[in-house]
């Protein structure tokens, strides 16, 4: 392996930049921004150089021992290491590449914010944590970075912490994630107790050579590990935090809650795929499918531009998780990669719209923006087409590969769900598109909207290019080399025509997209208010209210939690503090008061006791 130092540098540059900004340049907003942008762009270049020198097909580790308990072969050995293979290298490219574009975009987006420096410090901290997840070679290291990502996500969602809604959303995201992480931690403990190793390769070997270990790990171990992914990738029933996380600045939504962090769950599933047996994979597939359907239905009736895209993210994450569950890590990672491009693009374009509209997020206040914001309009169109799965945009390739995987596994139910969700996706995406960019201006702000500066539109264009061509530039090849034993490398032309080999899913996907776009066009071309609630009635209200999941959780889990907290409070107050601690404290107090009476303050009493003491000592020494 050549240039082994480069991945290390890529990993640690962002944390240095975060430290430098926090310690030295917090007062200089633009210097801070440039440090942070420099760190991630340098990381991107170094990743490219490393891949150029070594190719994608390497599969190595470089590690230092970080913690060692007990003797070397049997005890607990935890490395701090980097795992370098096609999977992690591609993810590095996504994190530093898409992340870099978003960093540059943030330079323009956060220009008016007085805490720009703080924003970039946190963004760098996040980049460090995310690269850590991607590169870790063992469970503990991954878990540490996993939590770091949770923390930086908390900090960034709550970036405008003076807004109560943002502070609440940050807390909600953190707690929900912690819930999933608890399961993840239990899963890690199970893996350790079953396989006596925490290194990914070590566990994989152990499972391969000894079926007994796989048996002792069972379905439960896999599902516990999946809990972590459920939290981070916002799968049902822990999906509630992601839409609220949109309270953060839009670049954060693009970077963390669309392109990278929420993908960490899917990435982790692919990394630890060897742990899951058939039953666990089944559960994973159905949870993914259900999430994608649920989120797509909710997205149809949202009116906040960022929330629509957020629910779309949920839905697409459900797709990826479903693909993993259908034993298709390659389609899942393929979709993750293209999704990172087009969803980051959609978020950044939405951010550009929001800035152009002076922080208005309701789509029914917009309209006819295609003339005022041409670059945003065209790039958004590319993103929307890619998300809807219209060929030859990247989304169609990855979505078709997932549909094909469902067919190959003969899971017709999930195939049907996926096709239906594809239609819904096209529908809500173009509902948003037509309402925002066509029709009449629905408010004054829309008539006075203006195009964003170059520093914001350039990243849009760069991402749009990849959202358009991402389907056939070799992403499939790279992931294929990771997961498929006899894998043939395809040329670009072959990749363009790849879906034609599997014509059924491709036609289904295409038809779904066409139906969705057509319905959206006929319903939403030139309307000033939403015609759908009148047609759907109660269903629309339920969709609008997110199927009342927040209310349900409020009434059940939060109530139950409050009840337990009250009981614990009583126990703590009366038993622990009143009885246990009170006894010790009261006993000491009583003894002290009793002994205090001895101190009469009378000189002669002291003298008498002193003499008595001497007499006793003399008797003891001489008397025997």
């Amino acid at each position, binding site marked *: 392996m050549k240039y082994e130092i480069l991945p290390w540098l890529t990993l640690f540059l962002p944390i240095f930049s975060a430290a430098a900004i926090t310690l030295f340049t917090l007062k200089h907003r633009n210097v801070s921004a440039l440090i942070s942008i420099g760190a991630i762009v340098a990381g991107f270049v170094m990743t490219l150089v490393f891949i150029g020198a070594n190719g994608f097909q390497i599969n190595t580790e470089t590690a230092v021992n970080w913690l060692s308990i007990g003797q070397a072969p049997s005890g607990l050995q935890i490395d701090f290491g980097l795992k370098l293979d096609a999977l992690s290298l591609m993810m590095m490219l996504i994190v530093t590449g898409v992340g870099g574009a978003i960093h540059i975009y943030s330079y323009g987006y956060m220009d008016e914010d007085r805490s720009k420096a703080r924003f970039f410090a946190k963004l760098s901290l996040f980049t460090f944590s995310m690269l850590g997840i991607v590169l870790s070679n063992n469970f503990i290291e991954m878990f540490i970075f996993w939590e770091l990502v949770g923390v930086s996500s908390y900090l960034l969602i709550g970036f405008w912490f003076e807004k109560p809604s943002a502070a609440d959303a940050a807390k909600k995201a953190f707690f929900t994630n912690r819930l999933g992480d608890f399961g993840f931690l239990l899963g890690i403990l199970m893996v350790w107790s079953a396989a006596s190793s925490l290194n990914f390769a070590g566990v994989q070997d152990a499972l391969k050579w000894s079926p007994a270990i796989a048996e002792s790990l069972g379905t439960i171990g896999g599902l516990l590990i999946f809990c972590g992914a459920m939290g981070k990738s916002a799968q049902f029933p822990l999906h509630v935090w992601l839409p609220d996380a949109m309270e953060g600045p839009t670049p954060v939504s693009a970077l963390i809650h669309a392109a990278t962090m929420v993908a960490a769950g899917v990435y982790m599933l692919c990394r630890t795929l060897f742990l899951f047996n058939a039953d666990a994979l089944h559960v994973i597939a159905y949870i993914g499918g259900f999430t994608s359907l649920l989120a797509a239905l909710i997205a149809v009736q949202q009116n906040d531009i960022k929330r629509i895209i957020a629910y779309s993210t949920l839905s697409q994450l459900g797709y990826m998780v479903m693909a993993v569950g259908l034993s298709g890590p390659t389609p899942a990672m393929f979709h993750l990669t293209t999704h990172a491009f087009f969803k980051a693009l959609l978020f950044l374009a939405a951010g550009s719209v929001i800035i152009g509209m002076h922080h208005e997020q309701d789509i029914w206040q917009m309209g006819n923006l295609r003339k005022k914001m041409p670059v945003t309009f065209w790039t958004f169109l590319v993103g929307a087409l890619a998300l809807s799965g219209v060929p030859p945009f990247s989304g169609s390739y990855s979505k078709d590969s997932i549909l094909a995987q469902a067919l190959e596994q003969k899971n017709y139910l999930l195939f049907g769900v996926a096709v239906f969700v594809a239609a819904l996706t096209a529908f809500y995406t173009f509902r948003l598109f037509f309402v925002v960019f066509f029709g009449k201006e629905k408010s004054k702000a829309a008539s006075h909207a203006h195009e964003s500066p170059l520093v914001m539109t350039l990243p849009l264009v760069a991402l749009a290019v990849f959202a358009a061509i991402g389907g056939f530039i070799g992403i499939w090849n790279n992931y294929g080399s990771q997961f498929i034993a006899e894998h043939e490398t395809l040329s670009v032309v072959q990749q363009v025509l790849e879906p034609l080999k599997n014509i059924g899913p491709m036609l289904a996907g295409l038809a779904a997209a066409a139906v969705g776009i057509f319905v959206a066009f006929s319903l939403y071309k030139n309307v000033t208010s939403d015609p759908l609630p009148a047609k759907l009635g109660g269903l629309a209200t339920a969709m609008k209210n997110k199927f009342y999941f927040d209310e349900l959780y409020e009434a059940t889990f939060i109530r139950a939690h409050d009840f337990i907290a009250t009981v614990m409070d009583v126990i703590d107050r009366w038993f622990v503090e009143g009885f246990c601690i009170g006894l010790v404290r009261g006993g000491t107090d009583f003894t002290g008061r009793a002994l205090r009476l001895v101190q009469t303050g*009378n000189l002669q009493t002291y003298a008498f006791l002193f003499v008595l003491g001497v007499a006793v000592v003399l008797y003891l020494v001489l008397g025997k």
Partner: protein
Amino acid sequence: MNVGLEHYLTVSFLLFALGLLGVVMRRNLLVIYMSLELMLNAANLALVSFSRFNDKLDGQVLVFFIITVAAAEVAVGLALIVALYRKRQTAHVEDLTSMKL
């Protein structure tokens, strides 16, 4: 009657006990102080008699030192008592209980 070591020591013990009794029983600081001196001199007597009956001079030399130091100590102690009297207008130990909590 032949006066032996035990007689001297008995006297010394009686003197010491009287002094101790004075320290513990009497209420006036000055008297307590005098009783203390009495105990000191009881010790001196014991030292001198040991010295005499052992045919060594060490004890008597030590007694000289004790008398010298006691003189200095008396000067300091009396000064303290006078100072205390001036401050509190009393030399009775019952009135001096500020060490009590």
